[in-house]
């Protein structure tokens, strides 16, 4: 069948097929294959795809194939296969039908039509898909910066974890009872920290400034105990220049340094 194709005399380029030689390559590259080229020819000539006149279609198709070959364009094998198929269909249509032919015999064009329709359907589907807004091309997926400067992923600690840690310590160090801390002691120690922190800022505080009577008597007592403990541990100095003069509290190292 290939021989037949090559054996055909070169047909002159009809006017409606004329493409400027410069544009030819671009034009031919625009086709995605033989089905695409056939569809173009059918649509261009307003042919009925369901009742294709095989003779003119085959002629036009072969003309294109010939142009491609004469320009030494790399012609995909599929184009030649299609040419053979078209000529086969054409010749089968030309054969006289036996008078008592089985009515189930298929039109030789049926398979071609089916493939053309299916290809056209997918071609249009591709265009429709291409029209959908595409992420990266038509729309941008939002993903704003996540600010982490303050809270980089830090471990969570629960109060109970501290007790567990302490328990582990006890276990290892076989700590004796003097390490047991009561709520009262803890309260004193908390106030020791508070007083030291206050002294960090002000260096010297008047004794009375350390007390907050509005928080009640228990807090006053605990604050006083904290002061005594701090003094005992030489962490603060409590001074009074004379009787009834203001009492000053300062950090233990404030003067020695």
């Amino acid at each position, binding site marked *: 069948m*290939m021989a037949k194709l090559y054996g055909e005399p070169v047909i002159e380029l009809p006017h409606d097929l004329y493409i400027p030689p410069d544009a030819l390559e671009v034009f031919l590259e625009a086709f*995605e*294959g*033989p*089905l*695409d080229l056939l569809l173009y020819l059918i649509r261009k000539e307003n042919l009925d795809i*369901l*009742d294709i006149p095989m003779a003119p279609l085959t002629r036009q198709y072969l003309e294109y194939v010939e142009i491609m070959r004469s320009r030494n364009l790399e012609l*995909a*094998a*599929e184009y*030649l*296969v*299609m040419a053979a*198929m078209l000529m086969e269909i054409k010749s089968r249509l030309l054969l006289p*039908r036996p008078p008592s032919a089985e*009515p*189930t*015999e*298929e*039109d*030789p*064009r*049926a*398979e071609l*039509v*089916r*493939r053309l*329709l*299916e*290809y*056209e*359907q*997918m*071609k*249009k*589907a*591709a*265009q*429709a*898909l*291409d*029209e*959908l*807004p*595409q*992420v*990266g*091309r*038509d*729309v*941008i*997926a*939002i*993903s*704003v*910066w*996540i600010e982490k400067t303050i809270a980089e992923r830090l471990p969570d600690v629960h109060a109970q974890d501290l007790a567990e840690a302490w328990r582990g310590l006890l276990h290892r160090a076989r700590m004796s009872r003097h390490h047991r801390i009561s709520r009262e002691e803890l309260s004193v120690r908390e106030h020791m920290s508070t007083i030291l922190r206050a002294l960090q800022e002000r260096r010297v505080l008047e004794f009375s400034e350390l007390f907050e009577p509005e928080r009640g008597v228990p807090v006053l007592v605990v604050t006083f105990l904290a002061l005594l403990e701090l003094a005992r541990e030489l962490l603060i100095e409590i001074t009074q220049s004379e009787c009834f003069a203001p009492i000053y509290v300062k950090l233990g190292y404030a003067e020695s340094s």
Partner: protein
Amino acid sequence: MQNPADAKRILEAALLAAQEPMSVNELKRLFDNEIGADTLKNLLEELREQWSPRAVELVSLASGWRFQTRAEFQPYIERLQTEKPPRYSRAVMETLAIIAYRQPVTRGDIEDIRGVVVSGQIVQTLENRGWIDVVGHRETPGRPALYATTRRFLDDLGLRSLQELPPLEEVAQTLQLEPAPAQQVSEAELRPDAEDEPHAAAATGTDG
């Protein structure tokens, strides 16, 4: 437990910061699963409504919810971009369409429909984009890979399911071929797996 306004604020921030669409189930974790799926969906709908007048919209996709710019505003945003993102070639888009509408398909199936050889590069392009993947192999000689579209494909095209693909253009149900009866042809057209027909494969032989 958050009040609805706080919950929406948190939802909004999580969705704006997310790299991928977030499902309702994932979003529930934001609230330690204390907010039910239905309440969450309502909040998301309210959020979508609140964003409706803006140039950014909250959309519901195959794998969840995502904020994205509206396509109408792309011309403005493109002014900031030094180069435009390329469009896919017709060959790529046709291959994608066949995989999307006819999945699962082999490369041979695609070649039957397109009538040309499908290059490995085309398949690679779609795989690299995360739009298609191999979902199995057909038990025929060579065990060719069967391709299907991914959830990412739906997400990237703004779809929730394949149902939302643009409908295929109606192909003539009955071929008015004469003189041969059209019955067999119309049957083939109606059958979704028409490409399995033996002569379809034979027709694209590449050995000229």
